[in-house]
């Protein structure tokens, strides 16, 4: 039981990491990025190929994965999302952007299928996957590292948004687009950067997941739905919320299946999701316009 709780916490924080990009992008652009899972898959594949081709430690892949996914995100926003965003400026319930991101999702997933085939791939690093024990609890090293990376990334992002110049500009834009642009902030530049950061975090999540997960073209899809649940639970736009949402999901999955069949825990997660949407749609940490 203790190990189940521990696993729930570790996995939960990693789920949280996969959702941070989604919540950040929503917070600033007010757009739900349906391609989240596809970008996660991109992170998984780029980590995989880095490790496969260099034989290096998987975490070293970050030096390649982070810039690669950052620029992918940056230019995706610049060339594909921005035009739709601009044309929908005056629409009260903009949905075009949601649809564009879904189109991107279809394109990325199937591009991967055409390039790499449908095969499942893993990297096997025994030193990382072996469970280490402490106080009678077990957890694999890869998940423990993942936990610390997740916390660090969340903390670093929080700090970045609060104290750096760019971060302040991002927050200003997220709170009031017009006001920010009056203050001389180029809102689309901010969107590009935000999207880039969001996708780069997907990339990092890919690196964190791969040592104990697998990759194939639609690998991100399962996490996609989970991520939606997590961000709504924690509050769309809230970074601590994403972590807490992730933890809740991780714990339900891990602890719940000690009592009932695992396939029912997903139903519980859906139910919880609906209840939150109806009772407290702003989520647990959703302060409007705040992270």
């Amino acid at each position, binding site marked *: 039981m203790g190990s189940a709780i521990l696993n729930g916490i570790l996995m939960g924080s990693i789920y949280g990491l996969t959702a941070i990009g989604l919540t950040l992008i929503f917070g600033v652009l007010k757009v*739900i990025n349906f391609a989240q899972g596809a970008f996660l898959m991109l992170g998984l594949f780029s980590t995989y190929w880095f490790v496969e081709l260099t034989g290096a430690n998987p975490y070293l892949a970050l030096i390649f994965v982070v810039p690669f996914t950052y620029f992918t995100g940056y230019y995706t926003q610049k060339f594909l999302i921005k035009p*739709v965003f601009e044309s929908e400026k005056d629409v009260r319930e903009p949905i075009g952007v949601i649809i564009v991101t879904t*189109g991107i999702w*279809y*394109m990325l997933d*199937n591009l991967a299928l055409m390039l790499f085939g449908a095969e499942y791939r893993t990297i096997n690093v025994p030193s990382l996957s072996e469970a280490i024990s402490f106080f009678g609890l077990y957890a694999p090293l890869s998940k423990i590292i993942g936990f610390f990376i997740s916390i660090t990334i969340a903390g670093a992002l929080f700090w970045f948004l609060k104290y750096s110049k760019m971060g302040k500009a991002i927050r200003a834009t997220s709170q009031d687009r017009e006001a920010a642009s009056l203050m001389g902030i180029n809102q689309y530049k901010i969107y590009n950067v935000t999207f880039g950061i969001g996708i780069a975090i997907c990339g990092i999540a890919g690196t964190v997941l791969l040592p104990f997960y697998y990759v194939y073209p639609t690998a991100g899809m399962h996490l996609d739905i989970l991520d939606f649940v997590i961000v709504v639970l924690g509050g769309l736009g809230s970074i601590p919320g994403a972590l807490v949402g992730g933890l809740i999901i991780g714990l339900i999955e891990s602890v719940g299946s000690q009592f009932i069949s695992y396939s029912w825990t997903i139903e519980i997660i859906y139910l919880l999701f609906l209840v939150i949407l109806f009772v407290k749609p702003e989520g647990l940490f959703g302060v409007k316009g705040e992270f």
Partner: protein
Amino acid sequence: MGLSKKQIKVILLIFSTITVFLIPVFIKSQSYLQIFIVVLFFMYLTTAWNFVGGFAGVLPLGHAAFIAIGAYVSTILFMQYHISPWIGMFAGGIFSAIIGVIIGLPTFKLRGAYFALATMAFAGGIKVLIDNIDTIGPINVGGPRGILINYSGNSFVNFQWVSKVPYYYIILTMVIILVLFTVFMMKSKIGYYLTAGGEDPEAAASLGINVAKYKLIAMALSAFFTALAGSFYAQWILYISPQSVGNMNLSFEIAFIAIIGGRGTIIGPILGALLLKPLEEFTRTYIGSALPGAHLFILGLVLVLVMIYQPRGIQEIVLKLSRKFMKRISKKV
């Protein structure tokens, strides 16, 4: 002799109606007919979706749940209680409408992105629920294995035929009824109020419109009609499973076809299905087996391009072209 535009339109309308009805006479190939049925099936679904996703102005991404409800209700009634699917169809529709209202009550309070997520979660929850339930009391739901409907030979009461032709006419009739219903509804007070609420809920409320009430009406109607299609699907394919009638991709596909066609217009969803489904069928057949994934890649690309260059859907282009076409014809004739 000069024909007025109106006369040309009348002629075209009569001609196209006759054409649609004669398709099974010309097209002997059952597989082409199958494609036509698929096209009509999606035309019907997107038109029903459009009540909420188009006119009511929100983005529902969980309509597969209503298809599943319709399919399961009529199938369970038919297989276990020997009730004709024709009756089961309406039972499913009414049940689905009730569920639609129950789910609509809280969700319409949510805006934009949240509404999309809520409907998605609702549909996801329904699918996982069916996946996990084998039986409810005496009712056999079949869990993930689904239910196969026994084939018992040509029978109107049983809603079963060997030939695809009857299915073609049934779904065609369903589409015509639904489109006519939509046309009449949109020209009535309900339609005006629904559109107003969809375009600007706050401005609509200031004109005395109970926006939530009209959205709920739209939801109930949409759920009702969508469920009928679910029952049709069950009798047409003779097999249902949570994977086939309840999966997320189906919900998405309905929404995308309607949006690419042009949501919130009557012609948009029809055009979307008419152009996209054959395109999909074509790419799947001719590219899909050689290069798996290429056809879905193309769909994604079309989606992105349409959103960037033609956000109001392809109906706009088609309307323009057909207007030009009409002008040329009326000059010549």
